[in-house]
């Protein structure tokens, strides 16, 4: 996999003494997209935090364009081109919407005009402080904010969580366009398995910190039995 944008090699990571991820390996090619599925608490968010450099890596390596970035601090990883949309959105409350977008922007394709085209609502709210937004608007802002850093890889942590159905549609359409039209490389962590699978090429399912299943998203979407067993409520006998 010489053309992998991001590779994880047998990664064990966690917080302090707690081990959350163990033996995680996968590659994401340029313009590829990976869905990370699994029930909550299995370590999906921790996986993204590990890619960003916020956890303690006890073993294994993270490679970016073939180079070892395991010890690189988070802000350097972001500057190298990894964009992160955190689960809790984490909008800066004392910054306006527009300041949230420009505070960490880096030159490139994505600029204010382009993200406002993608999320017209944000344009309407550009003068608002970050803490006066609805959940959906916060999610759009978090996504747009990451895009403004012009990343080569976008990490999305449960972007559809807790949103009204109509917003879920709007956002998942936007994410779909990002992947299909802009060729953005994506890692999408989701509990809404069926939406996530319909938006990505490949998928991994995590169970208690390890990869329990890998498949092409299309195949997994068709395989209801496996989905039920790994993510739904069916239980091993």
């Amino acid at each position, binding site marked *: 996999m010489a053309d992998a944008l991001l590779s994880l090699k047998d990664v064990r990571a966690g917080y302090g003494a707690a081990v959350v991820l163990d033996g995680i390996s996968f590659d994401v090619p340029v313009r590829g997209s990976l869905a990370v599925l699994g029930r909550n608490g299995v370590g999906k968010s921790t996986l993204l935090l590990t890619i960003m450099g916020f956890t303690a890596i006890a073993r294994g390596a993270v490679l970016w364009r073939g180079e070892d970035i395991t010890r690189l601090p*988070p802000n350097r990883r972001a500057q190298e081109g990894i964009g992160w949309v955190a689960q809790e959105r984490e909008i*800066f409350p004392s910054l306006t919407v527009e300041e949230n977008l420009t505070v960490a922007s880096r030159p490139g394709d994505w600029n204010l005009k382009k993200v406002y085209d993608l999320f017209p609502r944000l344009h309407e709210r550009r003068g608002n402080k970050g803490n006066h937004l609805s959940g959906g608007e916060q999610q759009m802002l978090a996504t747009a904010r990451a895009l403004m850093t012009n990343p080569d890889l976008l990490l999305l942590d449960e972007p559809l969580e807790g949103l009204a159905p109509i917003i879920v549609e709007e956002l998942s359409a936007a994410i779909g366009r990002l992947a299909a039209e802009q060729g953005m490389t994506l890692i999408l962590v989701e509990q809404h398995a069926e939406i996530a699978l319909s938006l990505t090429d490949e998928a991994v399912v995590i169970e208690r910190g390890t990869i329990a299943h890998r498949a092409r998203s299309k195949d997994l979407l068709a395989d209801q039995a496996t989905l039920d067993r790994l993510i739904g409520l069916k239980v091993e006998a």
Partner: protein
Amino acid sequence: MIGPFLGVLFDGIAYGMLLFLLSVGLSVTLGMMNFVNLAHCAFAMVGGYTTVTLMHVFGWPFVWTLPMAFLTAAAVSVIFERTLYRPLYRASELDQVLLTIGIAFVSVAVAAWFFGTVQQPIQMPPYLRGSVSAFGISFGVYRLFLIAVALAIALLLIVTLEFTRFGATVRASVDNQRMARGLGIDVDRTFAITFALGSGLAGLGGALAIEIVGLDPSFAFTYLVYVLIVVAVGGLGSIGGSLIAATLIGISDVAGKYYVPETGAFLIYLVMIVVLMWRPAGLFARR
């Protein structure tokens, strides 16, 4: 009756502006980094002695020494930030308190070694001396100058923090360090610059203070209490809060010493305790 009252008010405001310059840096760094820096006034002292040295040894005019007071204090503070402060950002308050008290102790002794324990008088240039009269009261020219400088700096600070990208970076880093790092912001660098800026302002304050309150090695502790009170009352990280609190405390200190000298500093301490118990985060806390 009204004459002395306005005079006291004017002196109080001027004194308050001095306290503002001395304390605003501590307010910002304490609010941002949660670092209890009791050596803040030691950096102010660096500024004061820079001005004294430049004037007495090199014959610089007073006004020209002010930028150097800012720069020297900022530079010295960066050295301390890099070596001693940074390892303790996550340490307990007690460790931070003790380390910075230690630094303040050392600064007192070092100042005494180089400059002796005597006051360091400086000669003001003619255009900053004397006073102007209006409405039947005389305003000291130097105090007017002090008020102008402090207000200009307050304005500059507010503009920088509220309307520049650097200011947005600072606010983002305070709001949410992890997210800021995750977006590629170098939070450590941002903090270091802010810290230097705050200490530089203290240095400037130290230089401007010589004419009003004098300068000797005990400065590092004498004004620490006032600075802490301003910060505690004004609220951490709030520039406007520091300005208002400093003005209030400047006026009440000058007025208290003029009208009820028998209470001394008692009133100021009482005000601080009451305010803290009423609003533990200060009157104008950001959060």
